[in-house]
């Protein structure tokens, strides 16, 4: 024991996981899944004006097997969703998912029969970036948020298992004037007392 105490005086111990997390955080390899206009804004983010390379995330891999950050940018139709799930499943763990833009996150304006109303109903999403399209600054914010998630040791959404029903936003908020859609629950929020 005396030897260990002596050792402690000149050896700092840390968790190797911290080092791994630091390396991971600064070398995110995004897999862009760009299906619509948001992908154009993603290109702008990767280009020289905003320069994702400053965050170590400039190595865009178009192979899911080599990347650990899935950026879903654009509308995902119901026919496209199996492809996206397949791509997501091919990515090695640990993996993170950014849902970029209103369409990928919630369907946005396209509340139609062809469009998935939020990819989080099928794959776990770590960070949502709102906007149509989000400004490059917003996407950078999203990437920094993912980095912070890695840094603080927060487990990625993919590690939390399949989504529970109440984790999804099942309530599809619409105006009370909108034509009723039998697929969508229409309960209005309960009255807030004292308002």
């Amino acid at each position: 024991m005396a030897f260990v105490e002596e050792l402690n005086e000149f050896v700092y111990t840390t968790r190797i996981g911290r080092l791994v997390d630091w390396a991971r955080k600064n070398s995110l390899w995004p897999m862009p899944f760009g299906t619509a206009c948001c992908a154009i804004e993603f290109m702008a983010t990767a280009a020289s004006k905003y320069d994702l390379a400053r965050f170590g995330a400039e190595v865009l891999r178009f192979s899911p097997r080599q990347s650990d950050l899935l950026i879903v940018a654009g509308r995902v139709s119901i026919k496209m969703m199996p492809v996206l799930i397949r791509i997501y499943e091919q990515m090695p763990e640990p993996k993170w998912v950014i849902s970029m833009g209103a369409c990928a996150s919630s369907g946005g304006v396209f509340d139609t029969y062809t469009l998935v109303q939020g990819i989080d109903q099928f794959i776990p999403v770590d960070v949502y970036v709102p906007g149509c399209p989000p400004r490059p600054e917003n996407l950078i914010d999203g990437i920094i948020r993912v980095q912070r998630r890695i840094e603080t040791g927060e487990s990625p959404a993919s590690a939390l298992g399949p989504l529970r029903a109440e984790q999804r936003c099942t309530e599809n908020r619409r105006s009370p004037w909108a034509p009723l859609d039998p697929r969508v629950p229409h309960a209005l929020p309960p009255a807030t007392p004292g308002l």
Partner: protein
Amino acid sequence: MGLWRRIYLPAILKGLSITLRHVFRRKVTLEYPEVLPPVPRGSRGTHRLNKDELGRERCVACFLCATVCPSRCITIVAEEAPAEWPDRDKRPRVFDIDMLRCIFCGYCEEACPCDAIELTPKFYPVGTRREEFVWTKERLLSN
């Protein structure tokens, strides 16, 4: 292809000269998280519900914004205005905007007859859960 073209040297030198020229050009990269870039005029970001001179919300719950909204992300539940507000019949009890569904088109601002709703140039923050993005009346009033 002649030997001169086959060794690719001229092409490589041409490419390198372009790179070298750009090294001395003005830098275009914005240092975003440290330095905020200028927000363009008319930029549309998160919403704000305006208040009048008496500190009441201007909104009269006419539902025009909720009707015109293309993504139908505004939820309004109206209630009767208190008796001491003679200038209006209704006010919103609930005024929620789902920022994740909103496309920041500004139609709500255009439709509003009372200048009650307005889009500020502020960025909308990113989040990790969908519920975070539903902004309630209080949050919109204080934005």
